[in-house]
C-alpha cells in the first residue's frame, strides 16, 4: 500500500506536500486550532509518554481517514457521524491491545487515555471536514500531516515538562545532581502552564508577522 500512496503523492506532488505541511504547521491541531486538548495535557508529563501517545493517535488518524474516505460514497449522510465513531473506536481498540502487547509499562502509564483517543476531537474533525470529501490518497496525507503535527505538539510539551520537572529527557539526566526539579511541571498545573507558554510564543510571532 505504501507504494500506491507514494504514487498518488507523486502524481499531485505540489498539493500533497502542501496538504502535509498544512497539518504540521499552518493548521497545527494543537497550537493553531486548539483542539484535542485532553490527551495533549494529560500524557505530556514525559517525552516518552508524549511520543507514544502522539504516534498512537497519528496511526488511528491515518487509518480512519483512509477507511472513511474510501467508504465515503457508501455511508448515508444521516448516520455518518455514528459510522465515523464506530470506525475510529475499532482502530482505537486495536491500538489499545497492541500497546498492551508491546509494553505493559507503557500501557499502565498511558492508562485510560489510550481508549480516550476515540473522543479526540482531532480525529472526528478530520473525518468530517476532510476525509468525507476527498480521495483516499489525499486523506491519507492529510491524516499523516495532522498526525505528525500532533506528535510535534505533544513532543514540544512533553520535553519541556520532563526537562524542567524531572531534569531529564527520555529518562536520561541532562542536568547535574544539584538541579532542583520544578515539581509543579509534572503536576497537572504544569500542563496548563506549558501549553499557555507555547501559545504565547506562537501568538507573539503571529502578532509580529501581522505588524510587518
Amino acid at each position, binding site marked *: 500500500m505504501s507504494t500506491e500512496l507514494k504514487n498518488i503523492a507523486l502524481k499531485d506532488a505540489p498539493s500533497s506536500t502542501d496538504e502535509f505541511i498544512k497539518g504540521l504547521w499552518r493548521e497545527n491541531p494543537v497550537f493553531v486550532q486548539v483542539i484535542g486538548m485532553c490527551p495533549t495535557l494529560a500524557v505530556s508529563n514525559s517525552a516518552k509518554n508524549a511520543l507514544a501517545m502522539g504516534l498512537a493517535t497519528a496511526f488511528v488518524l491515518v487509518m480512519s481517514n483512509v477507511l472513511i474516505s474510501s467508504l465515503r460514497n457508501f455511508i448515508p449522510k444521516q448516520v455518518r*457521524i455514528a459510522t465515523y465513531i464506530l470506525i475510529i473506536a475499532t482502530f482505537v481498540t486495536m491500538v489499545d491491545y497492541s500497546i498492551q502487547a508491546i509494553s505493559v509499562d507503557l500501557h499502565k502509564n498511558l492508562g485510560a487515555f489510550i481508549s480516550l483517543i476515540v473522543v479526540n476531537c482531532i480525529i472526528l474533525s478530520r473525518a468530517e471536514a476532510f476525509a468525507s470529501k476527498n480521495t483516499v490518497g489525499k486523506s491519507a496525507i492529510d491524516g499523516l500531516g495532522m498526525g505528525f503535527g500532533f506528535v510535534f505538539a505533544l513532543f514540544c510539551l512533553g520535553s519541556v515538562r520532563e526537562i524542567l520537572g524531572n531534569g531529564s529527557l527520555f529518562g536520561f539526566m541532562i542536568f547535574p545532581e544539584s538541579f532542583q526539579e520544578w515539581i509543579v511541571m509534572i*503536576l497537572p*498545573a504544569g*500542563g496548563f502552564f506549558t501549553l*499557555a507558554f507555547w*501559545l504565547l510564543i506562537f*501568538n507573539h510571532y503571529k502578532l509580529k508577522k501581522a505588524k510587518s
Partner: protein
Amino acid sequence: MKEESLWFIFINASLINNFVLAYFLGICPFLGVSGKMETATKMGAAVTFVMIISSMSAFGIHSFLTAINAPFLQLISYIVVIAAIVQLVEMVIKKMSPVLFQALGIFLPLISTNCAILGLAIFQTGKGYGFFECLVFAIGAGTGFTLALVLMAGLREQLEFSDLPKVVKGTAITLLIAGILSLTFMGFSGLGS
C-alpha cells in the same frame, strides 16, 4: 481500596481528582463555553445529567460484556450508547427550551465526544465500582465539572473588564488561569487522608 465510602468517592471525584483540573477531561467545553456564567451553569447541568445516565448504562454494559466474555467490545459499545444518550438529551432540550439549545450551540452534540463522559465510564470500570458507587461517582464527577466550569466563567467575566496585553488574549490567558485553578485544587488533596 474496596472499602471506600460513598462520601469519599464523591469528594474524590468532585474535588481531589477533579475531572477537568486534575485529569484534563472535558477541556474542550471547558475552554469553549466558559465565557458566560449562565451558559456555563447550564452546560454543567447537561453534562452532569448525561454523565449519570451513561454511567448507569456503562455499568449495565460492563456486566453484560463480562457475562458473554467479550471485553474487546467495551469501548465500541460505550461510545455508541453515549452518542445515543446525547442525541436523546439534545432532542429533549430542543423541545423544552429552544433558547438554551441556541446558547449551547455546537457544544451540545459535542458532549458525545466529551472525554469526561467516556473517561468516567472507563474509570468506573477500571476501579470495579458497584451500582451505587457508580452513581455517586457520576454525580461527583458532574459536580466537579460544573464547579470548574462555573469558577472559570466567573473569572473570565471579570477578565472582560481588565486591560490585557494583546499577546495573552484568548486561549493563552484561559490556560494560565486554569493552571492556577488546578494549583488551588491541589490543596484539596489533604481531604483524602
